[in-house]
Every structure is written in structure tokens, then in C-alpha cells.
């Protein structure tokens, strides 16, 4: 029962990932794609934590943290590139 609820939650998360992915495909333009990518990374962080719980490996949380850091740096880099700051 509880596990089914968690699985449903992860499925909804995956659907969100897919929806954001569609926005990334249709754009239009680089900026919209970066916004979609930003949302996708945040959703992925949640899903990594879900996998960590699912497989019972608490150390995967480190991966979620590193991923959120790298994603943040990436999005800031693209934003600075778009505003011609690099």
C-alpha cells in the first residue's frame, strides 16, 4: 500500500520530466530550452532521492547533492552566456 503510493509518486515525477522534456524539444529558442532543462534537473534530483530510498542505498544522496550543484553551475553558465556576460 505504502510502496504503491511511493511508486505512483515516482511515476508522476517521471511524467513531469517528460512534460518538461517536450517543452525542451519545442523551445522556442535557447532560453526556453534552458528553463525546461532547469525544471528537468530539479525533478531528476527528486527522482535520484527516490532511487536512493528504493534501492536502500543512503549514499546515493551524495549523488543528488553533487548533481544539484553541477546543474546549478550549468544553468548559471548558460544564463550568463545568453546575456553575453562571458
Amino acid at each position, binding site marked *: 500500500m505504502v510502496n504503491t503510493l511511493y511508486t505512483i*509518486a515516482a511515476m*508522476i515525477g517521471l511524467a513531469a520530466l517528460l512534460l518538461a522534456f517536450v517543452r525542451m524539444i519545442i523551445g522556442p529558442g535557447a*532560453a526556453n530550452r534552458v*528553463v525546461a532543462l532547469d525544471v528537468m534537473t530539479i525533478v531528476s534530483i*527528486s527522482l535520484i532521492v*527516490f532511487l536512493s530510498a528504493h534501492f536502500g542505498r543512503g549514499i546515493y544522496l*551524495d549523488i543528488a547533492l553533487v548533481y*544539484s550543484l553541477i546543474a546549478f553551475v550549468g544553468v548559471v553558465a548558460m*544564463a550568463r552566456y545568453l546575456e553575453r556576460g562571458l
Partner: protein
Amino acid sequence: MELAGAIVTLLGSLFLFLGALGLFRMPDIYNRMQAGTKATTMGTLLFIAGLAMGFHETIGASKVIIIILFVIFTNPLSSHALARAAHKAGIPLAKETVKDDLAADEENEEGAMKGTQEGEEL
């Protein structure tokens, strides 16, 4: 406790989905960012917190708190950087838009001091 965690996680995933849906439905990049940032921040918060409630023996609560704090701090920061970049890159606002003070102010400044660089200080 576990059931409560599962419900919180489910709620979080709904917010994540709403964020993505907002990304899909809103007419321009700024409104998309509005939906994207708020809903995903709250969604991540609830999703992860719910998991930590349900699986507290594998996922330590303290690391989860660090992830949540990090996301709460960086997510609006990157959205701000993107919104600023989008405006500077001249991406137009939606046709429903009522006013744009920033563009007006930037135009005034350019008119006042032609050629000089804009100096933005905090």
C-alpha cells in the same frame, strides 16, 4: 509515519507535475519560469521530505535537509539569472503583458547617456 511520508511524497510529485504543466501552458518564458520555479521548489521539498519520513533508516534526515536547503537557495537564484538573461537577450514578453518598467527604464538610460556602459551595482 510511513503512510504520512507516502502521502507527502505524492503531494510533492503533484507539485512537480504542476510545475512542468505550467512550463507547458504558460505563454512566455517569464511566466513559465514563475510556474517552474515555485512549483518545483515546493515539489522537491515535499517529495524528498516524504521519502525521508518513510525510509528514515536508509536515508538520513540530515543529508536530506542539506539537499532541501541547497535547492531552496539555488533554485530561485538560477531562475533570477535566467530571467535577467532572457530580458537582456531581448526575449519578448507575452502579448497579455500590461507593462514593462525594466525595458522603459533601460531605454531612458540609453537615451540619457548614449554609448556609455550601463553600470549595475548592487
